[in-house]
């Protein structure tokens, strides 16, 4: 810098570096020199005066600007009115599409949020969910209890199947309309039926007894799905698809008696024989 300014007189230096001095862009030695010259030439107020005048110059210069017509002429160098109109129309389309998409997203988010709110509210404030009905455990237990007290557990003791069918039809709490049962035939006689009231489900229960050996056989029907039972070995008797289970004393077959009704036979016979009995009594 010193080399560049070698030819400048002190006074020229003062005026030439005014802007750098005001902007504090002068190195220390140059700044020091500036102050010394200003003091010597009694021009200490020069920087202030210059700041004011430069501001005024800039304000006056800002009054010069190109009007719409001249800007239009310049814009026309790269695109004419038709092209500009196309671009603007395209931009407007883009904005419209963007807004439409934004609105759709907001709507979806709002619906989602409301759905979540309703779901959360229902989960939090809604009725407590009933415990799942564990049919296998419960109905084996019922079979045991009924076998221990064959008469005492039957609400509707009868040996006539028609009467029992009518009885079950008149029990609306069952939650399903049972199909009329048919005679099992063979060595089995009907003892009657009852409705077992679990909190989560009503169970239609029917008791049969072997004519010769007093062997017990129980039929249960309830509103439910076979899939709710554990997966097990399956079989098929003339279209009646069943799953078999066993406890230490009882054998069990379960099947889907109708789209919404599950059937279960509990007894001491083999799975296939009980499936055959189920087929005879309940049918497909």
């Amino acid at each position, binding site marked *: 810098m010193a080399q560049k300014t070698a030819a400048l007189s002190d006074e020229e230096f003062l005026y030439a570096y005014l802007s750098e001095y005001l902007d504090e862009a002068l190195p220390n030695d140059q700044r020091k020199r500036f102050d010394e010259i200003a003091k010597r030439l009694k021009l200490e107020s020069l920087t202030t005066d210059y700041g004011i005048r430069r501001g005024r*110059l800039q304000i006056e210069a800002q009054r010069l600007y*190109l009007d719409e017509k001249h800007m239009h002429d310049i814009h026309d*160098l790269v695109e004419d009115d038709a092209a500009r109109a196309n671009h603007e129309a395209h931009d407007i389309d883009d904005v419209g599409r963007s807004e439409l998409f934004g609105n759709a997203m907001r709507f979806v988010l709002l619906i989602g949020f409301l759905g979540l709110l309703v779901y959360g509210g229902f989960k939090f404030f809604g009725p407590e969910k009933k415990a799942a009905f564990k049919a296998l455990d419960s109905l084996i237990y019922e079979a045991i209890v009924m076998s221990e007290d064959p008469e005492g557990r039957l609400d509707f003791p009868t040996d006539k199947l028609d009467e029992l069918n009518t009885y079950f039809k008149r029990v609306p709490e069952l939650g399903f309309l049972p199909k009329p049962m048919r005679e099992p035939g063979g060595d089995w006689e009907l003892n009657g039926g009852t409705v077992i009231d679990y909190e989560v489900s009503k169970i239609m229960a029917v008791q049969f007894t072997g004519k010769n050996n007093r062997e017990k056989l129980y039929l249960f029907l309830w509103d439910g799905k076979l899939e709710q039972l554990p997966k097990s070995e399956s079989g098929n008797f003339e279209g009646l698809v069943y799953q078999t289970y066993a406890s230490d004393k009882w054998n069990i077959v379960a099947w889907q008696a109708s789209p919404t009704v599950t059937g279960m036979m509990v007894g001491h016979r083999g799975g296939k024989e009980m499936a055959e009995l189920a087929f005879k009594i309940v049918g497909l």
Partner: protein
Amino acid sequence: MRLALGGHTCHPHPFRGILYFAFRKNIDGYPLTLGCRDMAQNGARKYDAGAAAFFVETLCQDADTLLRFGFAMTLSEDFAGRLVFKTYESIVPSLPELLNRDATVIRLQLLRRAWELHHEINQEGNSSENVLYPLLKPLDLETRACLFLVDVVGLSVDEAREITKMDDTELRRHLTVGRKRLLGFRFE
């Protein structure tokens, strides 16, 4: 302010009739395609939306600065307006190279082009109604230019030297003269 561009209402396109290469760039999300393909598809359209937007939004931001610098050089609002148009017209062929440039570099290029064009056209007017006219009239062209570039446009001395091609001492001498005039001038 009243500006007249005279016979510049119809501007021949600089690329018209020239087989121009097509290129593609992306600045601020604009897919830029400039060249004969667009022009062939639509005769009225000279540049695609991205290039046109770049020209309008970046290059044209300096139009008023150019006008002020032009006034300092020509002492005429009319001539200054014409010079601004001529500057943009002459810079348009360089638009593809400018697309990647920084706004500061573009501004310097525009100012340099205006300075060069003024020397080619060499017109000086007398917008005596303008407040700045009596301030600038007694000063020579180089002094007016230096004063405006540094004290109005806000360029550094080195940037002003890039435009005027003066050496440091010469430019600072012009600044000295211009600033003395400014400090002694009473704005009405």
